[in-house]
C-alpha cells in the first residue's frame, strides 16, 4: 500500500505543480494569496493521496471473488484510529485558519495616508474618479502607479457588481447603497482586465474594463494630462479633435460591449443592433438615444438596461462627435 500511496502522491504533486493553475501575480496581495493557495494545496494533495491509496488498495485487495458467500471481518470500529482521524484534520484546519487569517490581515494592511480611487459600477460599465482630479470627472479606465498601496472605494448605482483583477487576486462586490473597499499594491506595470464577477443582468458577460499600472513618473504625467483634459472639457470651444470610434469601442464609452456596429467591427448582442435601429434616423434621435436611452426603447428590448449618465460621463464634444460618427456609420 505504501507503493500505491507514493505513486499517487507523485502523480498528484506533478498535476498540482506542472500545470499553471494561477495567472501571473502582479500585486503583493496576489503573492500572499498564492502562498495560502500553495499551503492548502500541499495539505490537500497529502490527504487525497492517503484516501486514494487506501481506496485503490482496498478495491484491489478486498474484492470478493464471484459467487463468494463469505462475510468480511466483524470489525466494528477502533477508538484509537477514530481519535487519530479526528485530531489530525482538526490540527490541519486550525493551521489553515490561522495562516489564512495572518495573510489576509497583512494583505489588507493599508498605510494611514494612502491614495483612494472611487469606483462606480452600473449596468454594464465601470467608471473611476480620482479626488485630485475632482469628483465630477469620471474615467472609463483605472490607472494606478506601481508599488503604491491604493484603496479602491467601490459602490454601485443599480444592482450588485463585483470587481476582479485576476493578476491582483482581489475581488470585491460593489453594492448599491454602501461602500466597499479593496486594497491593492501593484507590482508590475502593464494592462489588466477588470472583470465583473457578480451576475448583473443581460450584459454581465460583457462588463469588462481595464486597469493600467504605470511607473511613478508616467503616472504623474498621466495625472497632469487628465488635469489639462478636465480644463479643456470645461471650455467647450477649445475641444480638440475627438476620436469617436475610440470612444465607441474603447472603455470611455464602452458602446461596443453591448451594441453591434459594422463600421466599428463590434458584435455586442445586449442592446439593439445599431446598423438596424439607427438606419435613417436623425442626429437628434441619436443624441437623445445616448443621453436619455429610455425615451424610446427598440421593440423587444427593455428599459433601464443602458446607462443613463452618458451626458455626465462624456463631454459634449465627445457626444457630438459620437452622434456624427453614428449617423455616418449606419449610412454606409
Amino acid at each position, binding site marked *: 500500500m505504501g507503493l500505491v500511496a507514493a505513486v499517487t502522491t507523485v502523480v498528484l504533486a506533478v498535476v498540482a505543480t506542472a500545470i499553471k*493553475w*494561477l*495567472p501571473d501575480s502582479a500585486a503583493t496581495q496576489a503573492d*500572499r*494569496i498564492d502562498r*495560502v493557495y500553495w499551503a*492548502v*494545496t500541499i495539505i*490537500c494533495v497529502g490527504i*487525497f493521496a492517503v*484516501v*486514494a491509496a*487506501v481506496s485503490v488498495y*482496498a*478495491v484491489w485487495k*478486498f*474484492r*470478493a471473488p464471484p459467487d463468494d458467500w*463469505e*462475510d*468480511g*471481518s*466483524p*470489525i*466494528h*470500529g*477502533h477508538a484509537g484510529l*477514530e481519535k487519530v482521524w479526528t485530531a489530525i*484534520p482538526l490540527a490541519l*484546519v486550525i493551521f489553515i*485558519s490561522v495562516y*489564512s*487569517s495572518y495573510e*489576509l490581515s497583512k494583505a489588507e494592511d493599508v498605510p494611514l495616508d494612502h491614495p483612494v480611487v472611487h469606483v462606480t459600477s452600473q449596468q454594464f460599465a465601470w467608471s473611476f474618479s480620482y479626488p485630485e482630479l475632482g469628483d465630477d470627472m469620471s474615467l472609463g479606465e483605472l490607472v494606478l502607479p506601481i508599488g503604491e498601496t491604493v484603496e479602491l472605494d467601490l459602490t454601485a448605482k443599480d*444592482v*450588485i457588481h*463585483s470587481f476582479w483583477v*485576476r493578476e491582483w*487576486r*482581489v*475581488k*470585491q462586490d*460593489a*453594492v*448599491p*447603497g*454602501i461602500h466597499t473597499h479593496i486594497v491593492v499594491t501593484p507590482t508590475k506595470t502593464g494592462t489588466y482586465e477588470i*472583470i*465583473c*464577477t*457578480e*451576475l*448583473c443582468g*443581460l*450584459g*454581465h458577460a460583457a462588463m469588462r474594463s481595464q486597469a493600467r499600472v504605470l511607473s511613478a513618473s508616467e503616472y504623474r504625467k498621466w495625472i497632469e494630462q487628465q488635469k489639462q483634459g478636465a480644463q479643456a472639457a470645461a471650455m467647450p470651444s477649445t475641444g480638440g479633435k475627438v476620436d469617436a470610434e475610440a470612444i465607441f469601442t474603447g472603455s470611455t464609452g464602452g458602446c461596443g460591449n453591448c451594441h453591434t456596429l459594422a463600421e466599428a467591427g463590434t458584435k455586442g*448582442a*445586449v442592446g439593439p443592433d445599431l446598423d438596424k435601429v439607427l438606419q435613417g434616423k436623425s442626429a437628434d434621435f441619436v443624441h437623445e438615444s445616448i443621453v436619455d436611452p429610455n425615451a424610446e426603447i427598440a*421593440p423587444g428590448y427593455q428599459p*433601464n438596461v443602458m446607462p443613463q449618465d452618458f451626458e455626465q460621463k462624456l463631454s459634449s464634444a465627445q457626444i457630438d462627435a459620437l452622434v456624427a460618427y453614428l449617423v455616418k456609420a449606419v449610412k454606409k
Partner: protein
Amino acid sequence: MSTSVGSHDELGRAAELGSHEPPARPQGIRRWTAGGWLRVLWVVPLAFLATTAAVIACRVAMGLDTRGWDSFVPNGDFFHFNLADLQPLIVAWTTLVPLAFLAAIGGFDYWAYWISGRPQRPEDHSGHGARSWRDYFRVNTDHKVIGIQYVVTTMFFFVAAGLMAMFMRAELARPGMQFVDNNGFNGLFSVHATLMIFLFIIPVFAGLGNFVIPLMIGAPDMAFPRLNALSYWLLPIAGLIMLSSFLVPDGHAFAAGWTNYAPLSIQQPIGNLMFQMGVQWAGASSIMTALNFLVTIITMRAPGMTFWRLPLLVWANFATSTLVVIATPFVAGSQFFIMFDRVLHTNFFDPTQGGDVVGYQHIFWFYSHPAVYIMMLPGFGIASEVISVFARKPIFGYRLMALSLLAILILGFSVWAHHMFVSGMAAWLRIPMMITTLLIAVPTGIKVFSWLATLWEGRIHFKTPMLFASGFVSMFVIGGLSGIFLGSVPIDIHASDTYFVVAHIHYVLFGGSLFTIFAGIYYWFPKMTGRMYDERLGQIHFWLTFVTFNLTFFPMHWLGLRGMPRRVSDYDPSFGTLNMIISIASFVLGASTILFLYNMIVSWRRGEPAPGNPWRALTLEWQVASPPPIFNFDEIPQVVGSPYAYGTRDARHAVLRERETETAQPAEPVEALH
C-alpha cells in the same frame, strides 16, 4: 428469515387483517364531484376565473388601473403593455389555483367535510397500494406509492434541468454567441440550478426516504399519511410554476440565478415571480415531509429499535429533516420579501429607501447553506447502507458516524456567510465563519475515513450500487477538498464567483449527491418494483458517468483560477479549447442518463423478478417480500441487534414472524418473540 410471500397471497392476508379493498369508485355524475382528475378539470379553470375576477374587482374597487386585464385582449399591441401590471394576478394565481387543484384532486379536501358538517372520512388506509399504473396518478396515502411518485416526478425534472445544462454547454462550446442570447443563457442556468436543487435533489431524497424509512424502522406507514400525500402533490405544482416562467410574455424565465440576489431580482421581468412563488410550494412540501419524517422516526420505531440500532440512513434523514424544519422558512421569507418589494412596493432591499441589499444574502444563505447539507446528508446515509452491505462488513465506527451527522447539522448553521466573503458584509465576520466552515471538514473527514475503513478486510462485491457509492466517496473527497480552498478567505477572494465554484458545487452535488441517488435507486430498485435491474447496463452507466463527469468538471477548477467568471455566456477566446472538450464530455455525460432511464423503464416492465433480499442485507426493508406487502409487516417486527452485524454468524437485526410457521401452526403464540 425472508418470506416468500407473493403479492396475491398478501392481499388475502391483508383482508384478514381488516379493510384494505379500495372503496368502490363513484359512478355517473358523482365521478365529477368526487376527488380526482375529473373534478380537477372543472374546478381548476373555475378557480382560475374566480381569482382573476377577484383581483380585477379589487383593483377596480381601489381605483387602481386594470391594464393587467387589457393585456389579455389580443389587440396586436400585446408586447407593449407594461407587463409589471400582471404581477398581482400572477401572485394570486400561483397562490390560489394550486390550492384549488389540491382540493379538487382530493389531496386537501378533508377539512371541507368537517367545516360543512358533512360526514368525515377517517383515514382507514383503504386507498393503500397501487393496483395499476393509474394509481400512481391519483392521491394515495401509502408511503410506498408516494415514494415512487416522488422519485419518478423528480426524475422528470432532473431530465428537464439536465437538458438545460446541455443547451448551456452547446452555447459555451465556443467563445462568442451561437445558440441563445444573453437573457436566454441567464434563464437557462437559473432554471437549471433551481430545478436541480428544489425539484430534484431535495425531493428525490425525500422520495427514497419515504419508501425506505417506515420499512427500515419497522413501521406500517408514515406517521401522517395524508400530510405525506399532500406534500408530494405540492411538488409538481412548484415545478410547473417554475417551468411556466418560460411561457410568460417577454419571458426567458427567471434570470437572476438560483440565488436570486436583490436588487437584480427586483429589477427582473415578471418571470422572476415564478421563482419566488415556486420556491414557496417546494419549500412547503419539503417542510411537511421533514416533519413527517421526524415524527415517524421518533414515535414509530418497532420495539427494540433504539436510536443506537437505527440504520444510518434513518439517522441521516433525522438530521436532514431537522435542518429542513429549521432552515427552510428562511428561504421562504427571503423570497416573500422580494415578492413584496416587487408587488407591494415595500423597500426591504431598495437602498435608496433604506433597504439593505446585503441583508438579503444573509437571510438567503442562512437557508441555502444548510440546504447543501440537506442535499448531502441523506446521500451519506445511502452510502453507509450500500457500502456496509456490499463490503459484507459492519459500518466502521457506527456511533461516531451518527454523531458526526449531528455535528454537521449543528455546525451547518454557523457557516452561511462563507458564501459572502466578498459581498461587502461586516469584514470581521469573515474569520469566524472561515473557522466554522473549515471545522466541518472534521466530522466530514470522520465519515470518509470510516467508509474507507469499512472497506478494509471486507469482501467487496462491485454491483452497480456499490460502484456508485465508492464513486461517491472519491468524488466527494475532491469536492470537500476544493471546499477547503473556498473556505479559506484569501483563496476565496480570488476564486469566488468563478468556474472554480462551478467545479466545486458539481463535485459536491453531482459527484456527491447524484452518485448516492443513483446508488440508492439501483440498490432499492428490486424492493420498489419487485424486479431486478440489468446489471451490465448499470455497470456501463456507472463507468460512462464516472469518466465523463470528471472530464466535464475537473478542468473547470483550472478555468476558474485562470480567470473565467461563472454565469457568463461568452468568455475569453483563450479558454476556447478547454471549453470545447468540456462540452463534448458533458454531452456524453448527458447521454449516459438515457442508459439509466432505459434500464429503469425496461427492467420495471420486464426485469427478472427480484427475491425479497437479493443483497443479503440485514436491515428490515429486505426482510419482507419485494415489493413489500401493503402494510409492510404482517406483525410488528422485534428488533434485537445492530443493523450491520455482517461477519457474525447468525447475527440478527430483527426477528419477524415466519409466514410458513404461522400457517402451519396458527395457534403458536407469536408474543414469545416480544
